[in-house]
């Protein structure tokens, strides 16, 4: 006789109330998930989140109230849940899941892990920990109206890293510095400018005209000559931007004229750039002051709209620029000698500065200016978010969890939430899970990968930070050269191999065909890296992973050319070129008497995401014949600065 406890059969109900589960993240999905778990009968839950509560969370993270702003999300979430379910046994950690305290042994305590994250680095890390501990992981993501849930189980399904994910959108240096054509280029420039003036100066974030722009000269030899010359030319690179600004006392007018007049006039001398493009028009501070007072920013909320959604005039942005420079200058002074500021979209003068600088540059380059609201979306990589999408996805997560606990792994699915029903009338589309990729550089039995770089130019530091950590998701790599001597190149122990950091790889005998054994002991992960020496990588490209989709592959036919969507992936152009997946034509016959879609690997649907405006058409028809892409790429990281590639 079947017994029920609530809606569940007794055996399942017992399993649910006795098992321990881990929830990684207590934000949009996390709050909904915790609520669903306790209401379903889960009793032993651990939740971890490094973040604190912000007012913009309150439209969806319903376990938090205004009085909780500034407090730990994990902690407050726990307290709120206990209000309606005091018998739940919840442990809250205000911490990063990447902290080495949470090792494989820690993960092994749980029957099941559920991610409720918003960034790829953490997802990669938890993926590896769950593989190492061999426990099921339920992965999920949402953005706007769209969402997705899937199940990862070592040996049975693809892991999170089986399919290469598109890396964050980057723009070539010369586009940012010389020939911006879209607002986003100007916004990226403005963020770089902030760092150059007030923050940590980064060689990859130059803002001055790029004299080595290959497009600028008629003759390649001349480009090389210019590149060499610029190092000697006092006007251009000798003095750092910050030093120069300091020498003027951070005089806003002088800074304004340098950036928007002098540098622009310099660009105009690079006449080849402007043969086929509209030339920029310099702005002079004095001239701007004479302009009419269109929409000076006021402190009152305008009758109809949000203050932030107003678009000011040039004079307004010039004023905003001046004011924000002065405020930031004071902030810097307060912090004392050698201080640096860190850009934060929620820091008003920082946001003002980027809004003003970006708009002034947009105006110079004949683009329509943008409101602070829109600039903030782009500069801050803000993903719009609502409660209902998270509620649906969190519901689906628990349903998958119940299948896992019942031992019904073969019933598990990837489920996509669309904005509109697909041609088969489905709003929620379950798809069979894919088996692991045998060549996966994470979950294959002996993961291996090949990287092209210049052994004479790549520094050990870059190998560690840009390749092993950023690209390959390691947290604390240990690197040995397979040279018969087991030479240690990088040690994860603090300070041990610091002396190696500024040397280039060739100094250690590394050359074409060399192999590195890379271990991350926390993740219980060993990767063999084959190196190919290459001297003609593209400009601004430091390395290339063989077998990866190039970042700027030609777009698929139904994507507008040069789609500059800045969100964190999901572009047709980033579909792996080595994919063996066959797109389904509209006329293909699907299995009509099954309620389910074929494996998602045979369905491709592009989800174009980004900022406020998205390409909606593809998404709405998600399903056979249209393209679907995994949502987990979004968001990568709320505050990432878009890097030069």
């Amino acid at each position, binding site marked *: *006789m*079947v017994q*029920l406890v*609530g*809606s569940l*059969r007794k055996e399942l109900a017992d399993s649910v109330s006795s098992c321990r589960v881990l929830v990684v993240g207590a934000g949009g999905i996390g709050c*909904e998930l915790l*609520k*669903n778990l306790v*209401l*379903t009968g889960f009793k032993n839950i651990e939740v971890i989140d490094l973040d604190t509560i912000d007012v913009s969370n309150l*439209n*969806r993270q*319903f376990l938090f*109230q205004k009085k909780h702003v500034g407090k730990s999300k994990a902690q407050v979430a726990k307290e709120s849940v206990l*209000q*309606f379910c*005091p018998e739940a046994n919840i442990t809250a950690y205000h911490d990063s899941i990447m902290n080495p305290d949470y090792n494989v042994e820690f993960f092994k305590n749980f029957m099941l892990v559920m991610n409720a994250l918003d960034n790829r680095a953490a997802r990669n890390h938890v993926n590896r920990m769950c593989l190492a501990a061999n426990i099921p992981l339920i992965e999920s993501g949402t953005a*706007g*109206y769209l969402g997705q849930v899937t199940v990862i189980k070592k040996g049975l399904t693809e892991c999170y890293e089986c399919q290469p994910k598109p890396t964050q959108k980057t723009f070539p240096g010369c586009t940012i510095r010389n020939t911006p*054509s*879209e607002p986003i280029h100007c916004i990226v420039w403005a963020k770089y400018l902030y760092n150059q003036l007030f923050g940590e100066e980064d060689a990859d974030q130059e803002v001055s005209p790029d004299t080595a722009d290959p497009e600028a000269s008629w003759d390649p030899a001349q480009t090389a000559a210019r590149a060499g010359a610029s190092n000697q030319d006092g006007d251009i690179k000798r003095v750092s931007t910050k030093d120069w600004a300091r020498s003027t006392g951070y005089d806003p007018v002088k800074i304004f004229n340098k950036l928007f007049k002098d540098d622009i006039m310099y660009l105009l001398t690079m006449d080849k750039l402007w043969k*086929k493009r*509209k030339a920029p028009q310099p702005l002079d501070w004095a001239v701007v002051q004479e302009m009419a007072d269109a929409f000076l920013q006021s402190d009152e909320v305008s009758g109809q709209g*949000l203050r*932030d*959604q107003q678009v000011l005039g040039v004079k307004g942005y010039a004023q905003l620029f001046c004011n924000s420079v002065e405020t930031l200058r004071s902030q810097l002074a307060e912090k004392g000698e050698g201080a640096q500021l860190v850009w934060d979209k929620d820091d008003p003068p920082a946001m003002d500065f980027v809004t003003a600088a970006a708009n002034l540059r947009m105006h110079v380059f004949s683009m*329509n200016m943008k409101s602070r609201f*829109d600039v903030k979306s782009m500069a801050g990589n803000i993903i*719009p*978010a*609502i*409660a*209902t*999408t*998270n*509620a*649906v996805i*969190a*519901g*689906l997560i*628990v*349903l*998958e969890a*119940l299948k896992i606990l019942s031992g019904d792994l073969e019933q598990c699915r990837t*489920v996509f939430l669309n*904005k509109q*029903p697909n041609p088969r*009338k*489905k*709003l*929620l589309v*379950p798809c069979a899970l894919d088996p692991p990729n045998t060549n996966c550089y994470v979950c294959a039995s002996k993961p291996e990968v090949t990287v092209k770089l210049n052994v004479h130019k790549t520094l050990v530091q870059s190998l560690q930070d840009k390749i092993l950590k950023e690209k390959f998701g390691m947290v604390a790599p240990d690197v040995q050269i397979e040279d018969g001597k087991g030479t240690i190149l990088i040690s994860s122990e603090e300070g041990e191999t610091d002396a190696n950091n500024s040397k280039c790889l060739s100094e250690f005998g590394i050359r074409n065909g060399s192999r590195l054994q890379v271990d991350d002991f926390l993740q219980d992960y060993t990767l063999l890296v084959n190196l190919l020496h290459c001297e003609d990588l593209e400009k601004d490209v430091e390395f290339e992973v063989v077998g990866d989709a190039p970042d700027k592959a030609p777009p698929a036919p139904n994507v*507008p050319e040069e789609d500059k*969507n800045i969100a964190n992936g999901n572009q047709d152009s980033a579909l792996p070129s080595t994919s063996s997946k066959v797109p389904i034509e509209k006329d293909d016959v699907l299995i009509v008497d099954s*309620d389910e879609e074929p494996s998602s690997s045979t369905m491709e649907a592009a989800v174009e995401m980004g*900022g*406020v*405006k998205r*390409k909606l058409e593809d998404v709405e028809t998600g399903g056979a014949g249209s393209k679907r892409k995994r949502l987990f790429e979004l968001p990568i990281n709320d505050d990432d600065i878009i890097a030069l590639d």
Partner: protein
Amino acid sequence: MLDTVEKEDTVISEEEAAQYDRQIRLWGLDAQKRLRGSHVLLVGLRGLGAEVAKNLILAGVKGLTLLDHEEVTEESCRAQFLIPVGSEGQNRAQASLERAQYLNPMVDVKADTEPVESKPDEFFLQFDAVCLTGCPRDLMIRIDQICSQKNVKVFCGDVFGYHGYMFSNLGPEHHYVEEKLKAVKPSEGTSDGPDTKKPKVDPSETTMVKKTASFCSLKEALEIDWTSEKAKASLKRTPADYFLLQVAPLPSPFAPSVLLKFRTDKGRDPQPSSFADDSTILRQIRDDVLEAQGLASDLIPDEFVSYCFSEMAPVCAVVGGVLGQEIVKALSQRDAPHRNFFFFDGLKGSGVVDYFATK
């Protein structure tokens, strides 16, 4: 009611702008203003009702009335996250009120403890939208008819174990807008040769397109003659879950109409505490219903009984999420509404939108 001038003038404060930032970036300021001027009635505060309440309050409607005449039982404490522990014996709507209000102090949340059956017609007409959960079929039909007099938007929804559905009637002429990307214009020429590039049209610029959708009444949605040739032909393509409401036969693994009939006959939904007896009754209703339509009882296998008891929290979350968003869309008049049913099967993870009407 939604087209009154008042709504257009609603001012959004800086406080609201900060709190609603992430959703304004999705559906726009106009939509937020319309929400900000809307009043909604929510009937039924069990699991599904609580989810809808949460979603509407967080979205920022002007007012939400929680209506439920039932009392909190020991079981409800586990079923619903708005009711604090120790509320047994209190009215459900009343017990839910405090935590509902905490979700968003800017919304005017009220509790009404009267039975919905006793409310006069005019009661419903003061709202912009009415959402009915846990109501018997005939009551839903009656309220739907009342609301159509003044174009009050009507929504219905239920969850039975792993299964759930929602229905909407937005009236014969529901107007809304959709945001579309602006077409990239061909470049206006300059004289500089064939390859001249112009400053690109900003790819993020969009335009609003006006549209209209029509909906039938709940009565029309349910009175499909499944014995007709046309209906029979469409049966095979009909999502099994449609039949949550129908008192007609269904080629489905479970019997929603059976469930509604149970509710009408017994005055309550099947309960785990009387699992054995209720299962027997359910199977009997299934037999009767199918027989009346001349269909074999194995169209709905016995197993269905195990999966329709109580409300499963994750299923409430899914159905409540979709239902909540449909109400938001209708009130804000933005984005194409789902027409007119949504069915969710929690065992399969499939969620289907389909249109049923006699015409």
